[in-house]
């Protein structure tokens, strides 16, 4: 995680674009004006740009056996080599059915997700019907565009049925939080070309080469769209060469600028331009074996690290974390480190990091849960917190917030691998007298400390006393349920509330 990232930030804006918003006429007029002056390359890349319709259904994280209503979203994709369609992960997430439409072709084709990378918001689709690819030329990728150069977006944004083109310049290139996953930052290109809902997944072209995949905007900022640049796309494509998507590895270090002259002198560093400090490490054994807090990062891979914590990547000053993004899962990245007043050449094993999965937006895997006697238990996650509303802090869920976002970093020795929350209680005489019925972190059940969902099952299954005893945070609030009454009520509650299974593990 880079400096200044706040674990709550992802909820402050959520600029996914798969749905169709209402648009106003001034916007339409502006797009039409742009179209009149666009020059499309002779190769007609629009032939390879497709519209994607996704019928999706997401689970309800506070009623994890249920699903939200089916939604229809639309986005854009483009054909690349290997008879594959590239698009954004968020365009095809939680999909039940995907249809694709070719340029000026009335026929919809059925598509399926072949690979999906939620961290980098990219996906590859396949179409079984051979006719779909007839006459289509795959688009090729170009290099990272330079700042101030002109790019053209192709896509099927809201406001019409036909393909739309917008042109703009590359405004800047930096690391940005990828809001689809919410807790990862990668290289991103900002442009003033209009990128609107429905553009997501569409190609951004320069000289008929794809130099990016349109993927997000920030509500409230005008003339600001973002696209995923070639280095991130190439990493995704290389990752899947073995038939599996692993994801971007995480170095597990917090890099901070090292500009204070006294601190540099304390570490015995000369000069003031080179070297950023490693302030702390994530509990990743491979990282902890190689690096230490107060190591000074002089070079990562091919990039020298400045005292401001940035590297120069193709002429752009970007946060040094970008230097680690070239590595694949399982690679080792060469590092030059300053430690104990000498330079060391080290090799950092890079691997993906899953322990913070619950702090980001989750996809494709349905929430785990257990229901017993009407008590609904599920892992505490950002997805669960989102069910409490955007201003969940104002509603006083401090214990949930601390347990999810802070304890792991601050007191890992007391952190639970999978904190469990009593999400709700399905009313029944057997549980009607409970005082705490929802939104409480479970500390213990029948004396067993609850580290993960399986512990809840074990605590109930192995009980021998007359009562089940639940202790909830904070202050170990006590709740009791008559065990015989709970056992008797359990099947009845499942039937009453039409719950097909009492657990998903």
């Amino acid at each position, binding site marked *: 995680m880079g400096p200044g990232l706040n674990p709550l930030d992802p909820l402050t804006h959520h600029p996914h674009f798969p749905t169709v918003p209402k648009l106003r006429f001034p916007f339409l007029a502006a797009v039409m004006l742009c179209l009149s002056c666009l020059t499309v390359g002779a190769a007609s890349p629009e032939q390879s740009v497709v519209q994607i319709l996704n019928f999706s259904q997401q689970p309800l994280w506070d009623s994890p056996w249920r699903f939200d209503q089916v939604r229809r979203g639309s986005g854009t994709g483009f054909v690349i080599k290997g008879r594959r369609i590239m698009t954004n992960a968020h365009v095809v997430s939680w999909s039940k059915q995907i249809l694709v439409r070719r340029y000026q072709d009335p026929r919809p084709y059925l598509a399926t997700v072949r690979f999906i990378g939620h961290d980098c918001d990219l996906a590859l689709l396949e179409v079984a019907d051979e006719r779909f690819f007839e006459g289509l030329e795959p688009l090729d990728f170009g290099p990272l565009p330079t700042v101030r150069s002109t790019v053209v977006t192709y896509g099927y944004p809201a406001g019409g049925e036909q393909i739309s083109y917008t042109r703009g310049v590359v405004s800047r290139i930096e690391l940005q939080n990828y809001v689809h996953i919410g807790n990862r930052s990668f290289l991103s290109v900002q442009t003033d070309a209009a990128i609107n809902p429905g553009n997501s997944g569409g190609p951004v072209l320069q000289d008929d080469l794809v130099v990016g995949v349109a993927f997000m905007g920030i509500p409230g900022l005008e003339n600001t769209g973002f696209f995923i640049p070639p280095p991130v796309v190439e990493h995704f494509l290389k990752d899947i060469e073995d038939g599996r998507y692993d994801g971007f590895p995480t170095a597990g270090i917090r890099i901070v600028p090292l500009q*204070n002259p*006294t601190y540099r002198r304390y570490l015995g560093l000369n000069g003031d331009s080179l070297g950023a400090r490693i*302030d702390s490490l994530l509990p990743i054994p491979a990282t902890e074996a190689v690096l230490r807090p107060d190591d000074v990062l002089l070079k990562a891979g091919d990039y020298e690290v400045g005292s401001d914590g940035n590297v120069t990547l193709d002429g752009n000053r970007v946060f040094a974390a970008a230097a680690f993004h070239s590595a694949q899962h399982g690679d080792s990245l060469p590092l030059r480190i300053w430690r104990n007043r000498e330079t060391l050449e080290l090799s950092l094993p890079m691997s993906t990091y899953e322990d913070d999965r619950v702090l980001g937006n989750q996809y494709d895997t349905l929430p785990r849960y257990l229901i017993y006697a009407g008590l609904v238990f599920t892992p505490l996650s950002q997805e669960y917190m989102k069910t409490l509303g955007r*201003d969940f802090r104002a509603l006083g869920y401090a214990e949930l917030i*601390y347990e999810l976002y*802070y304890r792991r970093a601050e007191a890992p020795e007391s952190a639970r691998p999978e904190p469990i929350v009593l999400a709700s209680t399905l009313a029944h005489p057997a549980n009607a*007298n409970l*005082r705490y019925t929802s939104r409480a972190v479970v500390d213990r059940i029948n004396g067993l400390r609850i580290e993960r969902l399986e512990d809840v099952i074990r605590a109930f299954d192995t009980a021998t006393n007359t009562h089940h005893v639940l202790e909830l945070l904070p202050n170990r609030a*006590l709740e*009791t349920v008559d065990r015989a009454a709970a056992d008797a009520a359990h099947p009845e509650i499942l039937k009453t509330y039409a719950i097909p299974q009492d657990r998903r593990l």
Partner: protein
Amino acid sequence: MRLFLCALLICLVPLAGHAAADDRGHARLWQAAVVSLEVTRQQYDHLQPWTRQAQPVAKVGVVIASRQILTTATDLQDLTLVRVQKGGRGQWWTGALLWADYFANVALITVDDSDFWKGLKPVALAPRLNPAASARIVRWNAGSFEMRKAEINRFDVTNPGFTDTAHVFAELSAELGGAGWGEPAFDGKRLIGLVFAQIGNVCHTLPAPFIRSIIDARAKPGYRGLGYFDFTWQPTVNPETQRYLRWEGPPRGVVVIDVVERPGTPSVLQPRDLLLEVDAFPIDIQGDYLDPLYGHLMLENLATRNKWAGDPVRLKIWRDARELEVDYLLPEARNAARLVPTAPYDQEPAYVLLGGLVFQPLTRDYLRSWGENWEERAPFRLAYFRNEEPTPRRSGIVILSQVLPDFFNLGYHDLRNLVLERLNQQPVHSLADLVAALAQASDGFHVFDFMKGDSLQRVILDAHQLEAATRRVQQVYGIQQDRVLPRAQAPTGPAPSVQK
């Protein structure tokens, strides 16, 4: 029907006339006792603890004895001047604070000049409140004497001024605006309470019997101040909990779920004790007892019902299927009892400035600097410390609240609200620890280590240049003192003293 109406009117007229005559009669008594108070106090900006401004506060007082004016303690801390006006107009007389008990929210003020007391007559405090009484809340308002009808809705228990103490209050309904500044409430000739807060048309009123208990206790030597219950309980409305605890009688009592370990004093309570009685008052499953004066009240009031810090409270508990009686010693209510305390009363905010780095103790006053919704707006982690109790490992919290930019602290300019764990390897729980650790610099460096998980773990400063840098920052930012350390405070709040 018409006859009946006439008869009713005939009856009502004498009654109304009688009430009006009563009010007029009582008004003279009330006007001779009620005074206006003009308080000027230091208002500190805890985000810039070296700054302050004078804050005027208008309050109401009532004469209750010779040379004694009763009011609430609200906003009397850090006062620089108090003036008193009688009759709602004319001269303001310089007053003096006799004492203020911030935990009880009661204060007495006097005026040295004998001429002031001419024409004033004390009123008596009611020994009990009659819920059926038609009360009046009164005050001087722009030269006129304002009297508002008030009805007692109910009695409840509150924590005054963010303290741990809890005491009874009366909820009075009245068509009155801007109250909550010590307005007296009367039932006939007797004072039944002082209004200390207002929500809509509901005035929260400190009852006279509670006020009397505080005044009487303070008049005796060795006043120890109020205590409080430092254990956490929950209702036992779930009958299964009673069965689980093997209680076989009729439903009663509350279950203790958390106890605070006091150093050197093992708690007489344990989690899962069923608390049946407090000082012989049976406790019901909601946690209420039947008070002879006020009816059903939360058991917390039994910590302040004629009880003082250090007093034993006899508790009857059910533990391991046996009934036990234990003596619980009331801990003293004081600001420092919490991990995030209220800032000490009558002291300027504490801070230490080191080369532009501002260190402050984390207090509730600091958190309240984020405004009305501070619980949502203040940095979450700092605000969350309110839920934690002090431990030997962390008895207090010192934060790096901000950095005043200077080239000396280049690279640290954006740091704020970091929890300091150690300075020069020495644990820091207070500003005194911080100052002491400054003597432990090694090789000319001060090493500041912050709490794990914070946005930065370490800061290094040049020990040799620190003093010069601090002086430079003081000069640039206009800060007179580089440090203000907290003074030890009397356990019962400010000592009884007359401000001259």
